[in-house]
């Protein structure tokens, strides 16, 4: 297994304001799998993703990524972990506004000695015509593609996507999901996708459903269909 999570716990606040976001989550994801995490708002799915991304420090449990335990790492070690192994894609793209598409992609290329070919990636993601444009000059879909390129440039083993299509229309969402699928296939990247969108579960290898901080469903999707064929996005 590439990712193994055991009895993961996370609590916010103290006293009356105490909220248990994760109440002992245990799961695992195979290398190169596309995994979707679903659940209602406030169920703890983003917290789960952030814990795996080393952005939140869990209160208990264990997270092993490629055999390496990340719980208990210092902030500096977590930064190194993110630098070496992870890619992030956000709902609102979070591009650096004063950098061009090319420069935004280079933000992450800079972090690795062996990045993917930038121009090839730009070509693959259909951004060739926009390479010198600034985020404000792009549509939502183009911005998200840029964010994906940025996340992929350092060829991460694990890609964490937090609502990657949350701010996009269905047509653009399909394009983005197709892209993620292509990347998954082409580069063998393990992907965790947090989403509210129920349709996405049909295109992935594994489905995790979190409710009230616990895994309520964890199953493999044996009838996987291509993203391009998804309906009701």
């Amino acid at each position, binding site marked *: 297994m590439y990712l193994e999570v055991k009895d993961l716990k996370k609590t916010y606040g103290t006293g009356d304001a105490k909220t248990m976001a994760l109440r002992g989550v245990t799961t695992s994801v195979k290398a190169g799998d596309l995994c979707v995490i679903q659940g209602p708002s406030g169920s703890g799915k*983003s917290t789960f993703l*952030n814990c795996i*991304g*080393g*952005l*939140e420090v869990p209160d208990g449990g264990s997270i092993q990524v490629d055999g390496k335990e990340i719980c208990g790492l210092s902030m*500096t070690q977590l*930064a*190194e*972990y*993110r*630098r*070496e192994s*992870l890619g*992030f894609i*956000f709902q*609102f793209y*979070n591009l*650096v*506004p*004063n*950098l061009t598409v*090319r*420069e935004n992609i*280079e*933000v*992450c*290329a*800079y*972090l690795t000695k062996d990045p993917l070919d930038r121009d090839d990636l730009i070509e693959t993601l259909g951004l060739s015509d926009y390479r*010198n444009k*600034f985020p*404000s000059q792009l549509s939502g879909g183009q911005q998200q593609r840029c964010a994906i390129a940025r996340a992929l440039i350092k060829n991460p083993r694990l890609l964490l996507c*937090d609502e990657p299509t949350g*701010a996009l229309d269905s047509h653009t969402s399909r394009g983005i999901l197709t892209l993620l699928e292509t990347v998954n296939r082409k580069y063998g990247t393990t992907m965790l996708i947090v989403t509210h969108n129920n349709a996405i579960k049909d295109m992935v290898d594994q489905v995790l459903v979190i409710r009230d901080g616990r895994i309520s469903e964890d199953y493999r999707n044996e009838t996987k269909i291509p993203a391009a064929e998804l309906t009701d996005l």
Partner: protein
Amino acid sequence: MQRILRRRALRELRSHIFRYLMLGLLILVSVYMLVSLLGAAEIIIRGVHSHAEANQVEDGEFRTFAPLTEENIQELTENGVIIENQFFLDFKEEKGAILRVFKNRENINRLELLKGDLPSEEQDIVLERRFCEVNEVETGDTVSFGGFHFTVTGLATTPDYDSPVRNMTDSTADSKTFGTAFVTEEMYRQLQEAGTAEGAERFIYAYRRNPEKTGSEITDKEIRKIIEDFPFDVEDIDDKWFKRYYREQTEDISLLLDMAEFAAGKKEAKELKENLGVSVHNLQEFVPREDNMRIGASANDLYISLYGCGVAGVIILGLFAYVLAVFIMHGIDEDSSVIGTLYSMGVTRKDLIRHYMILPVSVTFLAGLAGTLLGYTDYGIGFQMMDTYNYYSVPELPLIWITYIVVYGVVLPPLMAIIVNFLVIRKKLSKTALSLLRREKKEVGFHNLDLDRMSFVSGFRIRQTLRESRIALTVLAGLGISLMLVWIGVDCLVMCTHVQHDSVADTRYEYMYFYKYPDPEVPEGGVSAYAKSLKKERFGYDLDVTLMGIGPDNPYFPLDLSDRMDEVVISSAMAQKYNLKTGDEVTLRDEEAGRIYAFHIAGITQFSPAFYAFMDIDALRKICGAGKDAYNVVFSDHALDIKSGRLYATTTKEDIRKASDVFIELMWGMIYFMTGFSILIFVVVMYLMLGVLVDHSMYDISLMKIFGYRDREVRKLYLSGSQVLIAIGTIPMIALSKAAIDALYPYFVSNVACAMDLSMSPLVYVGIYLFIVTLCFIITRLLQRKIHRISPGEILKHRE
């Protein structure tokens, strides 16, 4: 709505308390300094003038060869002039200091007693305050001179010695070696008769106009004319040295005059006598109050401070207001979508402007109020006044509330904040609701800069620097203002150091004797010269310039002078002070004769102790109508045996050394103060602004951290660009600020009669540059902690 917004302002204050506290403190310190300096200047200017008037300060004074007769005095009185003789004798007291002894005054330049009583008994003496302070003399102590012992009964000041310099040509006062003293009339007579004084008695008369007597105010020129017209006979003069001198001068021509009188009559003989340059009238020197460097010098010194602080305050407070505006702009950027929402709900821009004004106006008002109150204490105005008290002979002046200074301290900071913030905030809030909701950013001018061929880091830094250029420019503006303050201090130090070093280095003689009544022959071992004291105005101040006639073989001034009467070589001190260069024309004023002389400057010679215009001695003798062997100055490399009664003054190289040392001692306080204050401004402005830069990029930095960037790399990307811009910008800033202060400096020291060499070693510039860059480096390092505190999770809170 405003009530809710006010609460929000309070929360904003709480969340950025450190930032507002620091800036508030800086405003407080600045206002405290400004109020202290302005208040001290205003209180001294007003106080010195009012005390001077209360003590019947003279309208002018004149010196005569011989005392005026009763008829002379009567004539002046009838013409609306009140006069009082203020004769004096200089004595060397037992510790070597010179005490200038006067009899007590009744009508003009009266004593302001600060402690004790006026002299009533023969052995009573009142001493000038500064002399007592420096020499640690108290009432009840005994001082001895001229063979007499006196008991100090009081400490006083007089308006005619506000700047207690021994000679009007002295550039600095040194109360360690000179002071004034006042005894009873009877005692003065005894001292006069004892003949133990240093040099001859000086017949000085102070005058005041008395328009009530005539119904109109007599002018200085008219008073002078009356005195010049007084009949004068050398036989009326008691001074044996004058009589001897007169005989020596006129021996050869007295026979000629007798023959002229016999042949052509008395009138023609008198004309001939005048043309021959022999004594024309009794008046030796006439100095109206405006030209008297001793009177009101303390107040004159502070006018620059008054104007300078007024302007500097507006600039400094303007900068702080802008720094506050940057904070607010950052807040508006953060609140962009909230503002958009409020706009869409019908809240007006006016409401929001008012809301965003609350903090800057409150902070500046409170800081200004606290600064003003602090300024109005002994630690503010009182402290600043000490500089004047420790140099000038001024009476003690109480703190008084001066409305405009209170308004300046309390109203100006919020007013500047209102103006600057209004202009900035108004523009910032003029976006549409939709644009604010979408967080649309205005593209900066260099937005489309093609950085394709640059490395990622360099390109990123350039983009980041351009994006935050406003902040970098504010830091540079702060740096410019700080540097100007630094230069005021450094220029002062440089000028004083040059004076200290060059004055001694340029003085080749050991003794310079100014004659009142020259010996018939130049004393053995001396080198003669002929000097004439003239005036030249600079920025409203009339300073003394000496036309120095020297011979071709003068070893102390080895100059190659032509024999032309319209050509001079000027001292470097004069060239610097009056901004003159070779080839210029210079005009000098003869106050006594009412003439103006124009000279062509043939060259400049390095001589910093005084303003000299050198010319051939014979040419100057011709100009002055003096005899072919006439001289009135003797230079020598050792002490000469000259009777003190023949001399006006003796200047030694040691005197010059002491005077230049005093200069630098006086200035140290100001140098420390200016440098310290400027560093404080620079550090705070730079820290706050770069801090805003980090805050402004918080989400981006958080994003970078999510990607795995280390703090060091984040600093390199976000702060190094500004650091480089500051490092580059510092170079022109140093040059521009130095040029600006060098241009202004002559105004600051317009009343100081000394050389003004502001050149300095390139190492000073390099040192200042390295200091700033190091400071910038330290501050960015400190800000790394701020970067470290930004959690990668920040970006996750960033939801539209």
